[in-house]
């Protein structure tokens, strides 16, 4: 049974279902081969259940969300664990990762990308390997056969391993051009290279030679900025690239890369490249998978609320004094969180007015809080 049919039944029954629920009903009716009549009575039942399960007005959803995300924190591990997807990459997990997400850190400790490919490319191992080598950082040292520093003649001879070059799907010409551009005193003879340091009398010659040797070995010949190691793995019949380091903007521009599935765990980068809605989804996804990986179940709605709060004004704000809590309207709320003196002094010269609409302000002055049963009042009609 398709979604249209379900939608029409739902409409007929005057039920205001969210899209996700309609999809669920459609899937379930497909599974059970529901007849139209059955579907109708099912929608009736679900309508009742939906009304029963609705949130009540005035419910303190924020506090509940914060508690639901925070409480499992005590049960999480602290360690940075290996493998998230691939055994070869280290990814921060557990409590440190969760803190990183709510902090909206600019520089996360282990940025990583999962690069997927469009249909037709994903099964092509050769193509994926080529792309992987374009993305991953390769230095000259990775493709050397022989490296010899000759202190007597003050030069070094280098032999490039053509097999390795081929294995990494690189072009020797391109590499040689790069080498020529980077070093002045170099002789190139096919795959045999000879470097000489620029020797001036004031410097120590041997030291120069050694420095040059390091420089030669560390010359980057391929790769995207900010990305280090790459790992290729097969996931359900298609090849996927996982990276250490992240550069979503550059990777999305590459040929064959699936723009809809390729992702990074760097929320700020997603915000920059794909916008705030994507950043919100990234926060939800990252927080949810961090929790799940630890075997903790937290309802998405709680995480959604945290993510929505962090992104509500169009930019990713952190949870804490530099973000949401520092921008609250109430002086008392800010003062009672952190940096008490700063906020009070600033309020005094700015002539700030606290309208006492928040929770903490009302607790401070000893009034009922405007939440739940405290959010309703009685208005009496005056008898005139």
């Amino acid at each position: 049974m398709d979604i249209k049919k379900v939608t029409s039944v739902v409409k007929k029954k005057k039920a205001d279902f969210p899209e996700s629920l309609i999809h669920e009903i459609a899937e379930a009716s497909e599974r059970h081969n529901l007849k139209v009549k059955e579907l109708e009575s099912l929608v009736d039942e679900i309508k009742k259940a939906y009304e029963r399960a609705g949130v009540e007005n005035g419910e303190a959803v924020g506090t509940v969300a914060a508690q639901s995300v925070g409480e499992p924190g005590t049960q999480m591990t602290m360690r940075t664990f290996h493998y998230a997807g691939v055994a070869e990459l280290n990814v921060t997990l557990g409590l440190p990762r969760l803190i990183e997400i709510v902090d909206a850190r600019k520089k996360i400790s282990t940025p990583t990308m999962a690069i997927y490919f469009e249909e037709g490319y994903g099964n092509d191992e050769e193509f994926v390997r080529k792309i992987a080598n374009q993305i991953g950082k390769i230095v000259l040292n990775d493709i050397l056969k022989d490296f010899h520093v000759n202190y007597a003649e003050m030069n070094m001879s280098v032999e490039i391993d053509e097999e390795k070059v081929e294995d990494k799907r690189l072009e020797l010409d391109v590499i040689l051009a790069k080498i020529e551009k980077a070093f002045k005193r170099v002789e190139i003879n096919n795959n045999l290279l000879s470097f000489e340091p620029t020797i001036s009398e004031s410097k120590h010659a041997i030291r120069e030679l050694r420095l040059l040797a390091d420089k030669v070995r560390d010359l980057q010949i391929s790769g995207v900025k900010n990305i280090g190691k790459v790992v290729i793995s097969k996931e359900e019949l298609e090849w996927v690239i996982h990276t250490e380091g992240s550069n979503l903007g550059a990777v999305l521009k590459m040929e064959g890369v699936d723009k809809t599935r390729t992702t990074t765990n760097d929320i700020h980068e997603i915000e920059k490249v794909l916008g705030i809605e994507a950043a919100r989804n990234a926060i939800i996804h990252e927080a949810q998978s961090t929790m799940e990986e630890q075997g903790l179940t937290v309802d998405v709605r709680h995480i959604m609320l945290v993510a929505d709060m962090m992104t509500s004004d169009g930019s990713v704000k952190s949870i804490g004094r530099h973000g949401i809590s520092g921008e609250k309207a109430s002086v008392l709320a800010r003062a009672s969180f952190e940096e008490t003196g700063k906020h009070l002094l600033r309020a005094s010269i700015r002539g700030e007015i606290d309208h006492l609409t928040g929770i903490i302000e009302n607790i401070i002055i000893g009034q009922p809080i405007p939440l739940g049963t405290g959010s309703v009042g009685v208005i009496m009609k005056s008898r005139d």
Partner: protein
Amino acid sequence: MQGILKKISQINFGLLSPENIRKMSVTKIVTPDTYDEDGYPIEAGLMDPRLGVIDPGLRCRSCGSKGGDCQGHFGHINLARPVIHVGFADTIHKILRSTCSSCGRVLLTESEIIDYKDKLDAKYKNEESITALIKEIYTVARRDKCPHCDEEQEEVKIDKPVSIVEGNYKLTSSEVRERLEKIEEDDYILIGINPVVAKPEWMVLTVLPVPPVTVRPSITLETGERSEDDLTHKLVDILRINQRLKENMEAGAPQLIVEDLWELLQYHVTTYFDNEASGVPPARHRSGRPLKTLAQRLKGKEGRFRSNLSGKRVNFSARTVISPDPNISINEVGVPEMIAREVTVPVYVTDWNIEDMRKHIENGPKIHPGANYVIRPDDRKIRVYEETKDSILEKLEPGYVVERHLMDGDIVLFNRQPSLHRMSMMAHEVKVLPYKTFRLNLCVCPPYNADFDGDEMNMHVFQTEESRAEAKSLMRVQEHILSPRFGGPIIGGIHDHISGAYLLTREGSVFEEDHVLQMLKKARLPLPKRKNEGWTGKEVFSLLLPDDLNMVYRAEICRKCDECLRQDCKNDAYVVIEDGQLKTGAIDEKAYGAFSGKILDSIVKDYGTDKAREFLDSATKLAISGIMKRGFTTSTADEEIPREAKDRIEELLSMAELKVEQLIDAYHNDELEALPGRSLRETLEMKIMQVLGEARDKSGEIAESYFGMDNHAVIMALTGARGSMLNLTQIAACVGQQSVRGGRIERGYSKRTLPHFKEGELGAKASGFVHSSYKKGLDPLEFFFHAMGGREGLVDTAIRTAQSGYMQRRLVNALQDLSVQPDGTVRDNRGIVIQSKYGEDGVDPAKSDYGKVADIDRMIEEMRIKSKAAK
């Protein structure tokens, strides 16, 4: 007790002007002394009686009210020379930097001024923060030349904490004040000062308000010695220097001396406001302890805001050790009589309860259902004593309030710290019991995260009818069986409840009818009709289930076989309940355990919380009486495995150790192939870890194969009551690799873990593989490595609690103002929409089915069954 409740609608912040300070002052303070020889406060001293009274009985010289009622009055000190307020030093610096040194105007061009004023007006109108904009102005207005009078500007620097330096010349506070006075009022707004409430020159003090004595009470020690508050000490210092400065100035002392004294005055005023300001040595008490001055009183966790305003100490509360009581309901709490006599409930006397209340008063404060106080209609509170009982009884009439002892059935709030979620504070019904501990049902341990190794809990008694009503309908334990975190039960059976139910309901457990009736009686269940034959445990348990309950699920004991035999499961793990009859499957954690109880979950959702409470109460009692009928114990004998098993494990482990040696040899001979993206060393580590991990698992499997369901430890592990199979195999077979920082143990001694090994040794034993079992015992080396791993675990936990606590505080602080509005949106207190529909579908996770609106598949099945039945 009654009165007009006024609602505070707003609080305005502003700066005190010198005139205001003088106007609100009741006296000028000049003498740096507090009391004279006779112990009387000195006039115009810091303890001047006009500043208010503390001792009850005395009357205030300023307002005439008695001590306790008088909240105190400010005095003032005229400073001989102006002094900069530390808190504003930074602001003053920024203002001076952004204004002209000769004409006093802001260093912005006319067009910029208009532009910024417009922007600021807009922000003020929308009540947005202007901090970012002011910051921008401060940077833009850092010009070398004044756009208004073309005067060259010298650079103004700040020398922490309060010195303002222009070029190379240090401005005196008077000069700073003059500069600030020069700024035109029109420009105030541009430099972040609201002209309605403040003037920039007020940030340089010429007169200092002296807080009333109620703010800085002196304490009389047992020796009769008076000990003054830190603030008083500081004020004494200020007065003393102020006096000397004044005298020196009047005597025409040399400039140098005056400046020194002036600086000293500045120091004292600075530390009076903030004794932790950067760049100033903190002022100390004679004992060397830094003084707690104004900023310190407000700041931080122990400051006024967090410990006295956001959280307050309360009356009508009690705290004691908790202990378990399986006989009370989950809704109840056992309260020691001693506490019940102390905390009270106010009851309004009416014609209908006056007789009851009389009895309470007759009992007095010492006999349990008694009363401690009576409040007369004129609001006078009278303590009930043995002697006064009769006179109170005589006058008692409707309109009085009796503060009677806590009694059975009263609603109280029960709490265990840390209060991490809302289930940490729930409403219970009181049950007054003997002895001195709070008693609670074992099912409520998971939400409170309580155990009985000495935990203490708090109880609060509600004082108004509204709060009781609210608590009863919203906070009662039974309303919190489902956790809002994931929409499943968080209250449920634990430990013996689980193993008890399993022993009762597993295949082949049959009881004589007499025994069944005994069990049911013990569990306080209604007795069924005799049927004169043996009962299976499943039949007994079915008595608790609602008659129309239907469900099918796989129990915790399910071994996840490749092919499920469903009803014919050998382990009795396929649970089928038809019309409230348990047909197949054993009851275990998946049935009614906390966090995963499926039967419990569906009873709460389909039959309501009352039914769920009844089910939980009787199911746990039945399980306990079941387990007591049969007997249940465990010892190390449960982890005993035969000789041949030990031999097999031994062989397996030595094989693994050999394999590790081979890997290490391969590594040394460069024969090892590196995994992609890993170094050789890392590859070796990973491979060794893998080999040893497998060896441990296999040894566990060998041990497991000798364990059967007649083994109590195994029953506990498999039903989910307590412990895990891993625990058991570690005791019986092999403990396995110890880890520090996620890897094998590497460091400790020079180039090896312990001096017993060769340098650089990489073998299993040398890196913390514990080959023995706990039962056999660890050798000294293994013990040491085990302790290393154990220590890391402890450190980890300590750090984690601190980190996650702070994260939770931040989360709660950021999100606490959000609420669902009548239109379905989620908004903060400013009215800003955070979500246009809560959670995108408006479903409350606490009322959902594990996050879903409903279990649609089950709904369809039930519908079909119903329609079949109808036909």
